[in-house]
């Protein structure tokens, strides 16, 4: 009798997992495209992070990342944040060699000027030093 009840529970759990799995398959974005190449001027490309190595800025960068970036880019920058599934373009993988090959100035452009779904954050993060702090933090996400 006891074994029968346990078996029924197990079957119920199995069915639930299958149902949730089927549901998830529909929720995962099927047509999300990869981001196109960024067109960034030399002016930005040559910019250097003046606060590189500043621990206080890095700490603030981590906090700001958590507040403004994590919901799309994910806690480890893998592009798997809670909102990422709603985006038309995949937010990218910050841990990848491709992303880490961008210069600090190019990342500064992406944060402050932005494009399409990656909007400008210059009105939300108003201090330049804080933006550089975020960029310093992005460097720590390298695999």
């Amino acid at each position, binding site marked *: 009798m006891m074994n029968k009840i346990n078996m029924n529970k197990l079957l119920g759990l199995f069915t639930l997992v299958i149902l949730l799995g089927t549901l998830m398959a529909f929720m995962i974005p099927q047509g999300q495209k990869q981001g196109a190449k960024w067109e960034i001027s030399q002016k930005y490309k040559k910019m250097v992070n003046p606060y590189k190595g500043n*621990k*206080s800025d890095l700490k603030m960068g981590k906090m700001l990342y*958590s507040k403004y970036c994590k919901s799309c880019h994910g806690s480890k920058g893998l592009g798997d944040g809670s909102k990422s599934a709603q985006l038309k373009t995949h937010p990218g993988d910050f841990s990848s060699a491709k992303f880490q090959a961008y210069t600090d100035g190019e990342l500064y452009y992406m944060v402050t000027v932005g494009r399409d779904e990656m909007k400008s954050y210059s*009105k939300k993060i108003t*201090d330049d*030093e*804080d933006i550089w702090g975020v960029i310093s933090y992005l460097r720590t996400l390298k695999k």
Partner: protein
Amino acid sequence: MKRLILNFILAFLVISSAFAQDTLKVKKVDKPVRSPWDSEVLIDNQTTLSPPAKTLEMFIQHRFGLINQKGIHDLYGIYAPGANIRLGLNYTPIKNLTLGYGLTKKNMYNDFQAKWVIVEQTRSNRIPVAVALYGNFAIDGRSNDAFGIEYKFSNRFSYFSQLIVSRKFSEWLSLEATASFAHFNMVAAGRNHDNIGVGLNGQIKFSPQSSIIFQYDVPLKIQGISEQTAFTNLNSAKPNFGIGYQDETSGHSFQIYITTADGILPQDIYMNNHNDWTKGDFMIGFTITRLWNF
């Protein structure tokens, strides 16, 4: 008790200048401290934070019924009648000046408010505290019958002004002390038109986006400004205590808490709160804000 609170606030102001920020040594330019508070409001109070210029912020502030009236039978006040709500809009036209309008269900108060952050605490500790002035003017929006036989439009007016001194002590702790003055043009017989109060509020961050928030506002019983010969339950308001959880994202701030006063508007809290937190008179409340940057 009041003396104790006053002493505590004075001690806070003195001690606050003795602490240094951990960012002190690496900064050459004396900038304001970062994120002294996570939100402009802290339960029923204001903070010394003003959003960046050209920010529009919408507020939804809600107070359910008292949790100790019917207990589980009205789900601790959540389904109780008489909940209070305020919908508001704030705009920051220039740095450190915020203007706002709100409409509260209780007495249909229409409030027009302004907050000016006079000085900001700096990272070098050259300025150890932030100082802000907050004021509002409210119009009671009930029907004329609520104001007696000799009705005058100005009887609907009430005012509130507050001095706020705050300090971010560390990355996880911010505290502020307030001194407030409330005035109603018309009050019921046996009550006072004016009152002065003090308060102590704080924010304890435990993650980049989350914090514990608390407030304690004390309306003072000062005979010198009282129109009555003695203070009674009718003409003196009770302290307002609240504690809760705050979560902040890029465009939202969310606070859920228990608090004592149902007024939402500060002059109502300092003049008309008769709930006693020591007897368990608490209500669940929440605040949601949404920010847009232009």
